[in-house]
């Protein structure tokens, strides 16, 4: 592990969410506000730049992520120690839950590489939009309950591996693209979407923009619930003293 400048490690999901919603531009001002580094892994780079570049549908999005890497707004990092830790975490995580005598492989190399990178950098925060990786960090027992419910069969838990993973990730906090969007809103970064005169036509336009962005993130795959969007909007209305 290294003691370094404070940092965030990004999984692929939040970058995809932001790209699809034309919000990648937020990363530069957020990074300034954060006063630290934003990191991605080789697997994330592969997923959000290389692979979509060769598709017709997402090529343009890939070409919007790439400049962020060129400008070091997103720094790609790899290290033999990260590779080793990734294999370790993957081996543990995919040998926690068993059904019908078979280990259920719940996570992917790329997701564990992001975790391993966070541990290597001694960072406390990882940005992940998808549900399973988040639950693995925050409460792996939830995954067991979910698997049993969906598979309609008992799921055995290898407690040794589960406790090992919990110990590894105990200091990690998870943020989603949702929280980044809310922080951007509170930093007034989203004011750029308010055109002159719009406030007179659309009451509380800023809140409407935030609401639109949150729905955009949700509808494009961020694990964000409708009730959470309502909660955020109510919170911001109260903060801004809007009825």
């Amino acid at each position: 592990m290294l003691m370094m400048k404070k940092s965030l490690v990004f999984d692929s999901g939040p970058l995809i969410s932001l790209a699809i919603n034309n919000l990648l531009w937020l990363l530069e001002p957020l990074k300034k506000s954060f006063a630290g580094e934003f990191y991605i892994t080789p697997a994330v780079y592969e997923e959000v730049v290389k692979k979509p570049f060769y598709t017709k549908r997402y090529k343009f999005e890939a070409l919007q992520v790439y400049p962020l890497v060129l400008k070091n707004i997103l720094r790609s990092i790899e290290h033999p120690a990260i590779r080793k830790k990734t294999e370790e975490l993957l081996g543990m995580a995919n040998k926690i839950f068993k059904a019908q005598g078979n280990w259920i492989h719940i996570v992917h190399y790329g997701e564990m590489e992001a975790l391993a990178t966070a541990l290597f950098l001694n960072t406390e925060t990882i940005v992940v939009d998808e549900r399973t990786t988040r639950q693995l960090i925050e409460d792996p027992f939830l995954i067991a309950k979910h698997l049993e419910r969906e598979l309609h069969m008992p799921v055995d838990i290898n407690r040794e591996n589960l406790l090992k993973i919990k110990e590894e990730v105990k200091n990690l906090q998870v943020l989603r693209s949702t929280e980044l969007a809310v922080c951007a809103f509170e930093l007034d970064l989203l004011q750029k979407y308010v055109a002159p005169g719009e406030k007179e036509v659309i009451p509380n336009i800023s809140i409407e923009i935030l609401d639109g962005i949150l729905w955009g993130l949700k509808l494009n795959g961020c694990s964000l619930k409708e009730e959470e969007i309502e909660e955020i909007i109510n919170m911001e209305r109260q903060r801004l003293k809007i009825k």
Partner: protein
Amino acid sequence: MGVNPNREFCLNITVKEDLIHILQEAIAAIQQKNTRLLSEVSNHITHCASIFQNPEAIKTAIVIYALFKIQDRGITINDGIMDLLQDGLIQVKKDNNQAYLGTLEGIFKKISKMDEKLALYMQQVINEAKIKKGMKLYQHGISLAQTAELAETTLWDLMDYVGKTKLNENVKDVVDLKRRLAYARKLFQ
């Protein structure tokens, strides 16, 4: 039904038995033009796929779902595809997994060439089948990136699809929104 002593090259017995049953059901459903049965067959194999995550189970689910969509549109599934399904059944019984995967690829190719006028639609059917079957894996609890790899689709396509479902509405969180936001604010403000 014998068991090949080289288990590592064999499908798990449960999966093998399931695949044989499912292929037999799928063939019957197509012959009878029973679209509903074909849909049910596709859902069943996806259930196995979440646990065993072997390419045979997942590709079979995708192929059968694609055939269901085609039949549902009123298009007749041609003899070439039926022959390949029968051949696939033989390969599974003989534990020839590589050959079986080959017949599934053959079915994909035949689907793409079924009707020149519908070539784009057929490709869309295959893509949709991959995403739909992938969604079942995600619904069962597998992560999005793992699902994308197993279903041979992209994270981009999966996220686009999952966002339009209610799959994320029932996600249980131990860290509530307020706590997460409070932490985010400390980092950025």
